[in-house]
């Protein structure tokens, strides 16, 4: 019953989406307002029907209806309610249904918000959004049907992949999908701008908050994914340059380039084609990443089942790219750039270089990800480039970005003099150099590490300086107190001052990444009872094994006593979980987090009689800075995008 209802809902959703797309365009072209209104209603109906489909699957999951294959494969009677709910996005079909639903909700939201306000854009925007929705629903109808039946009906479901049995599972995919879906709004507006020929900055102003919101979700999703990898996957790291990680990182890079380059168009009227290209690239990379990870063409820790899904995504990718290219060539005459870079030392040239670095970074990640495919196709050899390749290229490009981040935010538009540049950069520059020297004196070594510290402090120095100057200026001119002056800075130029906070967060993340990669201590050893393993300043003593039972698994824990510089510091209990259907045990790591370093202990294997255990001990310096930096980035983005009226009780508007 549930399955039939769900399938019917999906078919209706598909038909309604197609109708909505067609009716919007025809209604607008032929000035038939009833037809146009019906198109907007179709968007809302589509949203409602997809919601029904989503609820059907959720209902089946919660009631453990194992006649539906998806439920039988991805849920279990043993699960607590929240894992049953989260089963929705635990595997391919359900996650695509969730995606389609978020897409539908977003389309409805856009239509409700803007159909009266932006009458020229919205018909095409809703047509594009409905096209995207129709695509997702078509995937659900044909190659990845979440309502496929399963015979015979099993007594219990197989349950999720054990790695997904974690509370992060409730959060991480939602954040990522919100980011992915959010970028479709600026994309749809960009297409609408191209179709209507209204290529002034209007579409940028309408969508910039959408883009920044999507970017924030994507950033949070990626950082949260790192945290998940760190505390669940149990290999001691947070980022493995796995294809699915790259699949989220590539749109992030393109999206980051986009939210910076739009400022150049807003202020100087430059880079029109570039911005249209970037937003298309961002969206295309979302689809490409989905293709990579859902098609089984590349293997990854997140591999979903294989099938025809890949072809659907590949075809959709082709449609996106071809339509953008043809629209761009159609409007080529209107896209002539107005401004030009007058001076090498100007904000616009800094943004150009920032964009160049981000896009080439994106390209290097792309190349590394598909390298095995390329090599096999071109030379017929089986090769791969792993993390060493990505680390090799990411370091220098990342440092270049840090440098531009500091310089770019203080040079004026249209160019500044050397004198003004010196005035703006001297303080932060000196702070950076001092930080590098201080780190050297404290015993930190390595050119990359010291350069990163120096540049990160430089970026933070720029932020502090700009805050200080801003507050000082307001105190002089408006006679405000420091707190009030700070609030006014946020109100009057929240994008700039929120942006500085994002930059500070990024600098902290950079410090965390570089420190944890450079100074990681890793020791592995087979310990008999009472034996010790030394890792950095820590000693780990194996005491005994205990075993226990979870709802879905059996687990064995090793009990280890930890000594910090010979002082007893406590006990750690890393374990291994054994799932009845999996050959491989899943590690349950134990860790102590700290600002300075994390102690991270993995039980690799053990003797069944309890005589010995193989343990891996990692001392990971400053990993926490990544999580803290990520949170600060999110906070900064929130400040940058909050509606002015929320920030301002006095009603002071944003500076134009």
């Amino acid at each position, binding site marked *: 019953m549930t399955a039939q209802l769900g399938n019917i809902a999906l078919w209706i959703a598909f038909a309604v989406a197609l109708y909505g797309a067609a009716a919007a365009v025809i209604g607008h072209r032929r000035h038939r307002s009833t037809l146009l209104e019906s198109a907007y209603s179709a968007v809302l109906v589509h949203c409602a029907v997809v919601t029904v489909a989503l609820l059907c699957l959720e209902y089946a999951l919660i009631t453990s209806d194992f006649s539906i294959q998806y439920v039988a494969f991805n849920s279990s009677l043993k699960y607590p309610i929240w894992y049953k709910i989260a089963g929705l996005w635990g595997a391919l079909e359900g996650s695509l249904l969730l995606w389609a639903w978020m897409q539908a909700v977003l389309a409805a939201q856009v239509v409700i918000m803007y159909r009266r306000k932006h009458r020229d854009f919205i018909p095409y925007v809703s047509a594009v959004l409905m096209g995207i929705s129709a695509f997702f629903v078509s995937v659900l109808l044909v190659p990845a049907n979440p309502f496929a039946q399963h015979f015979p009906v099993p007594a219990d479901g197989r349950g999720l992949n054990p790695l997904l049995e974690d509370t992060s599972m409730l959060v991480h995919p939602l954040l990522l999908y919100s980011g992915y879906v959010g970028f479709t709004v600026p994309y749809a507006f960009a297409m609408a701008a191209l179709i209507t020929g209204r290529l002034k900055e209007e579409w940028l102003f309408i969508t910039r908050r959408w883009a920044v919101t999507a970017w924030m979700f994507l950033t949070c999703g990626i950082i949260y994914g790192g945290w998940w990898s760190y505390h669940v996957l149990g290999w001691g790291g947070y980022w493995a340059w796995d294809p699915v990680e790259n699949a989220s990182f590539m749109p992030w890079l393109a999206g980051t380039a986009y939210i910076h380059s739009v400022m150049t168009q807003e202020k100087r009227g430059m880079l029109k084609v570039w911005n249209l290209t970037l937003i298309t690239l961002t969206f295309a990379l979302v689809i490409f990443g989905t293709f990579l990870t859902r098609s089984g063409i590349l293997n990854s820790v997140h591999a979903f089942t294989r099938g025809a899904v890949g072809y659907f995504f590949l075809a959709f990718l082709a449609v996106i790219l071809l339509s953008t290219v043809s629209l761009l060539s159609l409007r080529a005459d209107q896209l002539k750039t107005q401004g030009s870079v007058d001076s090498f030392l100007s904000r616009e040239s800094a943004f*150009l270089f920032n964009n160049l670095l981000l896009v080439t970074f994106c390209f290097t990640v792309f190349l590394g990800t598909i390298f095995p495919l390329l090599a096999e196709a071109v030379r017929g050899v089986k090769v791969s480039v792993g993390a060493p390749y990505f680390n*090799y290229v990411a370091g220098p490009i990342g440092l270049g970005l840090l440098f531009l981040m500091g310089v770019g935010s203080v040079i004026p538009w249209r160019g500044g003099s050397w004198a003004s540049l010196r005035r703006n950069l001297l303080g932060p520059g000196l702070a950076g150099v001092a930080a590098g020297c201080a780190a050297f004196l404290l015993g930190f070594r390595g050119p990359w590490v010291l350069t990163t510290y120096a540049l990160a402090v430089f970026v933070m120095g720029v932020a502090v300086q700009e805050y200080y100057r801003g507050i000082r200026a307001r105190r002089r001119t408006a006679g405000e107190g420091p707190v009030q002056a700070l609030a006014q800075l946020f109100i009057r130029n929240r994008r700039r001052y929120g942006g500085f906070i994002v930059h500070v967060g990024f600098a902290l993340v950079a410090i965390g990444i570089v420190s944890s990669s450079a100074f990681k201590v890793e020791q592995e050893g087979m310990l008999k009872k009472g034996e010790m393993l030394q890792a950095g300043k820590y000693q780990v003593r194996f005491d005994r094994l205990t075993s226990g039972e979870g709802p879905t698994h059996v687990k064995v824990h090793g009990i280890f006593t930890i000594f910090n510089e010979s002082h007893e510091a406590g006990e750690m209990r890393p374990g291994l979980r054994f799932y009845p259907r999996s050959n491989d045990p899943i590690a349950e790591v134990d860790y102590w987090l700290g600002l300075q370093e994390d102690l991270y202990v993995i039980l690799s294997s053990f003797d069944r009689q309890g005589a010995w255990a193989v343990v891996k001990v990692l001392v990971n310096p400053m990993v926490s800075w990544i999580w803290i930096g990520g949170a600060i980035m999110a906070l900064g983005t929130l400040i940058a995008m909050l509606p002015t009226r929320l920030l301002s009780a006095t009603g002071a508007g944003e500076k134009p």
Partner: protein
Amino acid sequence: MSRGMMRVLVGAAVILVAVGYLIWGGVQEAIVYFYTPSELQTQGDKAVGKRLRIGGMVEAGSLTKDPETLIMKFRITDGATSVPVRYKGIPPDLFTEGKGAVIEGTWAPGGVFQCDLIMAKHSEDYHPPKAGEEAPSAEILYKSLIKQQGS
């Protein structure tokens, strides 16, 4: 074209060349070739110095371990050819004779594979094959093993 634009273009060209050079260096640094034991044998000395992954079975009866030094020796085979391997450390749990493994390391001129990483995972897929489903092909085995590094 303004002078500023000129300089920007020169700067952009410099960056592009630098990134191209980086990619080239990164690939050189990180490239790993995947061979079967037979392919490795055919390559002979040409394979020396490259970073390699060898996929195959751990030959039954070939495994010796020294508990003191943790040095382990075994042969890896694809049925036609087998290659001697030397490894120092603790192998993963699933590593045993007669089971599949992918090993990573370098081919020493003496004809012994110096291995520093053993990947002995069977399949990425958590679910066991359904009834009537074929056992995974070599291609799938390869795919499932190749991205294990670091994870």
